[in-house]
């Protein structure tokens, strides 16, 4: 059974269909990319999947559970973790603490355990701290652990956001245009990190504008245009797909395809 299955998902804002009858599956261990011209409905799709708003109709199943219309934090707690197109860091906290917060989903304890700090709590804190350091090493930010997050250059803020999402040990990671605003070098570093995350066994859905990045790392691609799915297949199939070519030629962003 697929890890995520989206069925006939429709999202309407007034008279505008941002998503219209979109269906696709994501298998465990897969790296799927969602592409499409600006305004095709990619981010809306992410927002619906991650529970930020309920779809007008259709259903979303994650790991066998119906998560259609479930609240965002509930969806996240069940292991479906997303990042944002515009980085959403905890700017006033250190790089390390940003990642430590990421482990919220996979840790436990509230006021009383914080106050009395039983043995399991102290062990958990230590694991959280060490886990954060390890993830910072993984994305190459270990030297900046104690820096305030908003002091990082933009490309590194992106990596931090990815590290923070990884701290939640996601079963499915949704990356919303992680390469937006990055230069070529930074994009390459990011592609390398995404590939390593994928190899380590995490299922990923990637929304991306950068075609060279998508074609390089995605195993399968879903193409949206005007809120509808117009194609689905391997990078080779997508490159040759007449509807995709038409959509991109007709649109304004063929440039780097």
């Amino acid at each position, binding site marked *: 059974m697929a890890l995520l299955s989206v069925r006939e998902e429709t999202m309407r804002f007034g008279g505008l269909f941002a998503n219209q009858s979109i269906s696709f599956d994501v298998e465990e261990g897969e790296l799927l990319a969602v592409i499409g011209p600006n305004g095709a409905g990619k981010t809306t799709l992410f927002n619906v999947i991650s529970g930020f708003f309920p779809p007008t109709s259709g259903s979303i199943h994650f790991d066998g559970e119906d998560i259609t219309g479930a609240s965002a934090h509930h969806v*996240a707690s069940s292991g479906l973790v997303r990042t944002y197109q515009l980085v959403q860091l905890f700017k*006033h906290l250190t790089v390390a603490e940003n990642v430590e*917060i990421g*482990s919220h989903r996979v840790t436990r304890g509230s006021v009383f*355990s914080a106050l009395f700090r039983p043995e399991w709590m102290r062990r958990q804190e230590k694991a959280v701290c060490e886990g954060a350091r390890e993830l910072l090493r993984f994305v190459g930010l270990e030297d900046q652990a104690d820096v305030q997050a908003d002091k990082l250059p933009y490309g590194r803020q992106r990596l931090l956001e990815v590290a923070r999402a990884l701290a939640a040990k996601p079963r499915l990671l949704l990356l919303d245009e992680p390469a937006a605003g990055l230069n070529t070098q930074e994009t390459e570093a990011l592609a390398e990190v995404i590939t390593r995350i994928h190899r380590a066994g995490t299922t990923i859905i990637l929304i991306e504008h950068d075609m060279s990045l998508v074609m390089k790392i995605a195993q399968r691609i879903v193409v949206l245009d005007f809120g509808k799915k117009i194609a689905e297949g391997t990078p080779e199939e997508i490159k040759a797909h007449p509807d995709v070519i038409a959509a991109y030629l007709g649109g304004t962003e063929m440039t780097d395809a």
Partner: protein
Amino acid sequence: MTSHATISIEPVGVRWQSMLPPLAVLALAGLGLLSSDYVVTVLGFAFIYAIFCTGLNFFMGYTGQASFGQSAFAAIGGYGSAILCADYGWEPLLALLFTMAISGVAAVFVGYPTLRLRGHYLAMATFALGLIVYEISIEWTSLTQGYMGYSGVPPLGIAGFDLVTVKQQLVALAVVALFGVFVAARLRQSRFGRALASIAGSEPAARALGVDIARYKLIAFVIGALYASAAGSLFAHFVGFISPEVFGVTMVVQSFAMLYLGGIGTMWGPTIGAVIVSVLPEALRGLKEMQDIAYTAILIFILIFAPRGLAGLSALFKRDRAQTREGA
């Protein structure tokens, strides 16, 4: 008013620097013991406010929300303790804990619907809460004796042992204030505290990491109410008299000045701010008619040169140390 909480992270390990603020509080209390009862009273108010602000800091500092209504819970604590002890002969400590429980429950009922609001709207709703409780304390004369106030509240005491002199009470207040900071520090440096900080940082990101925002906001609000209630009770016992004005808008404005001056979102900021804002006007009393001008001028200067509050200044030393380390 949206609260842009700037939160500086205190080092987790126990360094000698981290012992300075508690020692300073104890030194202040010690100084009080050698001084007149007048000085003792001023310091006592400072410590009571320190407790109030440390609680408010959970909601406004760590979690980054705005509450103009925390004085309502201080009123519940104050009037509750006054009535239970003066009229019904309760143990002060028991009354304090009991009224804290009432305030906590009240905070859940008030917070559950209002905390859906954000920014200015939340500020307005909480402000209304403060005003409502203020009006009740004036109008419900059979319970609160209205403008007359409630007098004859016995001093603090534990198990029949009363702290008769104000100096004994000052020491007790200092200990309670330090305990309040200790609890706050423990809660901040935990999974719970990080969840609060994530809400202050970015609600969308917190939600995407599985943080139940409504729940954590409510808990922070309730914790603030518990501290406020305790501060109200302690005030009633310390002064022996309370009236509606005590828990009015002035209390809200004072506590905001303390939070921002001391350093909102920091561990010691609320205490530092409470001491400065309480002691400064008294220290300037000699200036007579210039007192208020000098006082506000000093407050403004502090906010200009330490925009993140006085506790934020410790970050400067930290940076110096970091640079020396890199240089070496």
